[in-house]
């Protein structure tokens, strides 16, 4: 039968043992930190951005790395998904981009100055590059939906046709669907893409067109890789300085083959 003395030994011994193991693992976490979190990339702007994040109490509405409150979307991948240009415009006045009537809730205008906005975006960008052991397993979108096709996840068998692969990418890890609907009448953050293949041909023939594309395919590729080359008129899709909200450097996030697949998919949207 268990005695009080042995119960006490179990408590103190067990606590000591597991405390020591925990401290050992903590030391190891510190050793691996620099590489896993890209610690060297923390500059003054990222440091200031973390303070902005704290002082404006962001994580009592939002989650970041899934931690925080559940009143507003997770922001772990927001810079990749939405791009710094859009986020800056959004932070200046969120009510320009969605409404309390439409969505039931609204982010208040925080009155951040330009430097604070740049800093907090730099911080979020840095967080987006932390090695999170693969979380989230699928992109968490702010709005829009990816239900038209079941999103492809790493490890699932790939579709054989480029357009099918492109469609999975659009709705899945490419996260295009978080800003673009595939009908022309629904405008999320970016223009609706229903009929974009047809419009692309019309656009390049238009006198107002300023880009370098000669075919619909080239136009779509240009829109993906150089979004500033031509800004779609009659929409709030760019900064006053003519910087498109579309995330830049897509070619760094996606392989050449994936870009080809996306273009192939967009060409099916006639």
């Amino acid at each position, binding site marked *: 039968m268990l005695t009080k003395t042995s119960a006490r030994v179990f408590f103190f011994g067990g606590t000591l043992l597991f405390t020591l193991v925990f401290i050992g693992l903590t030391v190891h976490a510190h050793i691996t930190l620099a590489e896993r979190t890209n610690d060297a990339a923390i500059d003054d702007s990222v440091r200031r951005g973390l303070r902005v994040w704290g002082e404006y109490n962001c994580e009592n509405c939002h989650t970041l790395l899934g931690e925080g409150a559940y009143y507003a979307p997770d922001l772990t991948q927001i810079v990749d998904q939405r791009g710094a240009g859009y986020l800056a415009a959004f932070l200046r006045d969120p009510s320009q981009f969605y409404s309390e009537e439409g969505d039931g809730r609204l982010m208040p205008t925080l009155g951040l100055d330009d430097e604070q906005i740049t800093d907090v975006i730099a911080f979020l960008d840095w967080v987006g590059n932390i090695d999170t052991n693969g979380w989230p397993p699928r992109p968490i979108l*702010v709005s829009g939906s990816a239900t038209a096709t079941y999103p492809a996840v790493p490890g699932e068998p790939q579709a054989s046709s480029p357009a099918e692969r492109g469609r999975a990418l659009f709705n899945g890890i490419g996260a295009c669907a978080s800003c673009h609907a595939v009908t022309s009448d629904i405008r999320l953050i970016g223009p609706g893409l229903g009929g974009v293949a047809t419009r692309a041909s019309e656009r390049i023939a238009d006198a107002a067109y300023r880009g370098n594309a000669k075919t619909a395919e080239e136009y779509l590729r240009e829109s993906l890789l150089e979004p500033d080359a031509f800004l779609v008129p009659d929409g709030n899709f760019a900064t006053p300085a003519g910087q498109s909200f579309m995330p830049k450097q897509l070619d760094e996030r996606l392989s050449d083959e994936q870009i080809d697949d996306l273009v192939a998919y967009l060409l099916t949207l006639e």
Partner: protein
Amino acid sequence: MSDSSRTIVYAYFSAALLLFGLQIVFGFLSLAKYLGPDPLLYIANFATTKAVHTNVLLVWVLTGFMGAAYYIVPEESRTEIHSPTLAYLQLGLWLAIGVATVGLYLFGVTEGRKLLEMPTPLKYGVVVVMLIFLYNLFMTLRKGERFTTTEGVLIGGLASAALLFIPALIHFDNYTLDRFYRWWVVHLWVEGVWELIMGGILAFLLIRISGADREVMEKWLYVIVGLTFLSGILGTGHHYYWIGVPAYWLWVGGFFSALEPLAFLFMAAFAYTLMRRSGLSHPNVMALHWTLGATVFSAIGAGILGFAHTWPGVNKWTHGTHITTMHGHMAFFGAYAMINLAIISYARPMLFGITDQAAQTRTSVWAFWLMVGGMFGMTMALAAAGIVQTYLERILGFGYLETQAKIQVHYLMWLATSLLFSLGVGAYLVDFLWMGSARSRARPAMAEAG
């Protein structure tokens, strides 16, 4: 217990209960915003009301623990509180810090680390409060006649909670590290040393209520708190899965956090066995209700519902959804609110000088069932919201905003059930603060008449 010690305990418990009421007010403000639109967007936005809701929770639960310690330690050591002056100074300073914190939040001053948002200078104030508290308890122990395991575990929990507050004072530039050490405070409090406090209070109550043999009780108390640390220390890893530490934390955190329910299940099983043996014969029926209720609700809320989403293969989908809200509400209520209400209910006749232990008001019975029923309903509503959110947003890929629109009906259920809950809180407050004090005022008159 002398009148002077008794008044101190009464002051702590009253303050705790009033803050409990305030917590509920801010809970409603936050919940209303889920249903939108928000007329207070530029006065007190969600981040503010939610921070007040959770911070006031921590403050009232800790105030209750302090009151419980000032009650239990003199009782166990057969003495009186060392310095009533220090005890009041501590309470005054503690409440002043609490009021300042809430006031600053309402003006938008915060550090924004969830649950530790309090500005740093005020955190140093908390350290001072804890030092006064521990000094006063230590001096009380010194002049006491004996030192029991029950009070040892209770004081060990309180002292460790103070020690583990230190990481909250340190700031990190690397967000991953910031998260890493934030959990040293938050996790090691609620899934570690606070369980010692709960275990200590529970042991005290069970010895008193069931008449259990102290040697047997305290032996199992060691086993229970031993299991808490065995699972809880490395169980911290379940908060580390996705924050940027090596992947082996998925195994470490997954395995040990899966063992965390054991301590809670043990507490429930033990309380049940003792009660069966003694046959629910103690006249203070409400203390009995809250004590057993605390063990059952913490076993379900903290134990089973925590277990439900702690495994990494599940958690990668549910992390950051209302599944956490569901678990959090029932766990905190079951483990820490209910154990406070249990000790307050047990102390009630003593505090008001009511000699008839069996004298329960009908209001106190309503308070129990409304709170328990309301919290159960809230947990169900949040479970539905969390499951739908996980499925639509995380698995199917609906946007966050679209998903929120689809779970509005669950928010309405949340609202309805939390109304029941808050009626229970109101009943408890009225019963303790108003009826209790009316009774104690009536006492001298009755004595004269008798």
